[in-house]
């Protein structure tokens, strides 16, 4: 049974027209031989625009680099595949690039593994590959290796993508969340909750206008600027993806064995995201971001950090939201109207729209 019409999967949401069956991914595209070779060359390698891939060797040789290597991997599944502000293609590049960037590395190389569902319209695949190529160009990373598999109809949700990234560590690397100290300042690099709300509105067809737009984008420039500008006064960076800023705060509180305290009124939230969150009973702190990070800087370095962030277009709304405190009974607290610190809960599962 194909229930995509009701689950708002790719055919309904993809703006590209779907015509004859020959315009779709077939099992044969993954079964070796000439058909597969042509498919990979024309549909996948060519749009990526990297001539080295055309040799279709079994492995990529990379040039020697000076610094330490940093490596990360991530798999991407999203429904719908296209959403305002991005798609699974841009997401799979920025997601991995951002993981490298917040770890204090300059992103260099990516691998790209595609699991395609039989029947995926080729126009959808083409559009995703164009997004991947654009995002790779924009972040100056090279796709150096890849793999493509086709699974029978129903065994995947259109397309799943895995990317592995390699970067070069820039010294001095931030010591990370185990090294947070009392007085350290906490900053978010932009208005929060945009990606999760954009995808939720698109997936559940919530009919909000204008459609909320995902923050899906690169953090590499902001991370490098902070790195350069603050040196060892930069303690930690983390992109606030699933579980939102609240999830990062809880992870950091546990890693540092300290309490992280934020002020509700300091948290940047754009009007449209606030409107949707109020309407659906959601807390923006629990909602995923894909181009917004939480950073911790040494006490007193917050102003410099904000100056650096405000000079970049993608982080011009960065804001200081709180600080690190000695350990209390609650790992993470939020100060609301009466100036009292109250526990901030960890998100539980995916946010569900509610009416009560």
């Amino acid at each position: 049974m194909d229930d995509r019409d009701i689950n708002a999967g790719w055919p309904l949401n993809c703006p590209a027209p779907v015509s004859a069956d020959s315009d779709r991914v077939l099992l044969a595209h993954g079964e070796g031989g000439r058909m597969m070779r042509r498919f990979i060359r024309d549909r996948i390698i060519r749009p990526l625009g990297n001539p080295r891939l055309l040799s279709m060797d079994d492995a990529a040789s990379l040039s020697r680099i000076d610094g330490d290597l940093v490596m990360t991997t991530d798999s991407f599944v999203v429904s719908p595949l296209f959403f305002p502000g991005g798609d699974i293609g841009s997401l799979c590049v920025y997601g991995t690039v951002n993981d490298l960037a917040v770890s204090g590395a300059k992103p260099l190389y990516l691998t790209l593994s595609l699991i395609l569902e039989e029947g995926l319209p080729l126009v959808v695949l083409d559009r995703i590959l164009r997004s991947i190529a654009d995002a790779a160009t924009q972040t100056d990373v090279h796709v150096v290796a890849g793999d493509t598999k086709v699974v029978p109809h129903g065994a995947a949700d259109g397309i799943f993508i895995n990317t592995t990234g390699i970067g070069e560590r820039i010294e001095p690397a931030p010591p990370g969340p185990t090294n947070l100290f009392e007085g350290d300042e906490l900053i978010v690099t932009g208005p929060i909750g945009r990606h999760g709300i954009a995808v939720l509105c698109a997936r559940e067809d919530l009919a909000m206008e204008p459609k909320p737009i995902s923050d899906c984008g690169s953090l590499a420039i902001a991370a490098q600027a902070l790195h350069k500008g603050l040196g060892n006064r930069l303690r930690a960076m983390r992109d606030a993806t699933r579980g939102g800023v609240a999830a990062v705060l809880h992870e950091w509180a546990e890693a540092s064995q300290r309490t992280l305290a934020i002020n509700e009124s300091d948290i940047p939230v754009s009007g449209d995201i606030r409107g949707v969150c109020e309407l659906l009973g959601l807390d923006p702190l629990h909602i995923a971001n894909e181009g917004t990070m939480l950073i911790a800087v040494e006490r007193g370095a917050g102003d410099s950090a904000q100056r650096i962030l405000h000079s970049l277009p993608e982080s011009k709304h960065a804001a200081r939201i709180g600080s690190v405190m000695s350990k209390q009974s609650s790992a993470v607290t939020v100060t609301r109207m009466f100036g009292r610190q109250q526990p901030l809960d960890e998100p539980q599962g995916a946010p569900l729209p509610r009416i009560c």
Partner: protein
Amino acid sequence: MKFVDEYRDPIAARKLLESIRRSASQRWTLMEVCGGQTHGLLRHGIEIELEGTIELIHGPGCPVCVTPLESIDFAHELAMLHTLSDHDVVLTSFGDMLRIPGSRGSLLDAQAQGAQVRTVYSPLDAVQLAKKNPNKEIVFFAVGFETTAPATALAVKQAAEEGLDNFRLLVAHVRVQPAMEMLLQSPHNRVQAFLAAGHVCTVMGYASYESLVEKYQLPIVVTGFEPLDLLKGILACVRQLEAGQARVENAYARSVHYEGNLQAQEIVREVYEVGDRLWRGFGMIPNGGLQLRRQWRQFDAQQHYALFGSLPIIESRQCRSADVLAGRIKPLDCAAFGNECTPDAPLGAPMVSSEGACAAYFRYRNPQVNPIDG
């Protein structure tokens, strides 16, 4: 956000708080009826600020919490029906119901086993879904108090207007006043004044509370949900109690009128009639719910799907949600709270519903954080 932000003004809230403290000569016991109010009182820290001044008992006004296991189990079976029969049923629901534990897990658990469950924001969206998918059978899980009944009644009327024969309701609507009366009749009742549920009153008005006030001689103050609304409602209760008065008072007049929303009531009356209803944790409450009138029977999922109902209904023995819902104990008094029972692994509905008292305590009070002076 207009009509929201100004009611969260901390300076104004402090003034009201101070005024409540000055007015109260003793520790009065109030019950906020609606779970949304419980949530607001805890989230904004009002309950802690008033500790020692006012005792707030959390009322039964979480419709998700009082939806009987039978209904949740029925919804569960409906969502699975497509795996067992030709009925290609999609269960649509507010997100609130998805994590509530039934006898055989929650609707989210069912989804993992292949159930067709879809979250919607509005029952009218479920009607649209039925229209777009004529080969599917769309059932909407109609839970909620009088606030929500106009929306589901309207959905039925629109489905009829559109001639849809693939849209039905699983009705579990509850009425708040019979539950309030039941609490007052209890020999253990300690409630000295009610903060009545503002949005229920937006639809129903508050004329019908006059008989309650007369019979039980206690103040009932219609109260909203923002911090200033809640504080204003509490202050009004305290002033009446201090003056020895018992009146119905409206502290949410920007939204609530004496007679309520007559248009909404008319729509509800057209579609529903009052009936007895089982409340989780309370048992059968006479006139405690709404049911579809005879002429709308074809939209009644319970009539249409002769479901088995043979599976046993299993309620956790450790869960004391009945006592919490009736205001007999606070969530922290339950031995399972925070131990066997957490939002990740709830034993009862109040731990997982966003309006549930146990969930509110878990989120905002556990562990308790000391105030920072300054």
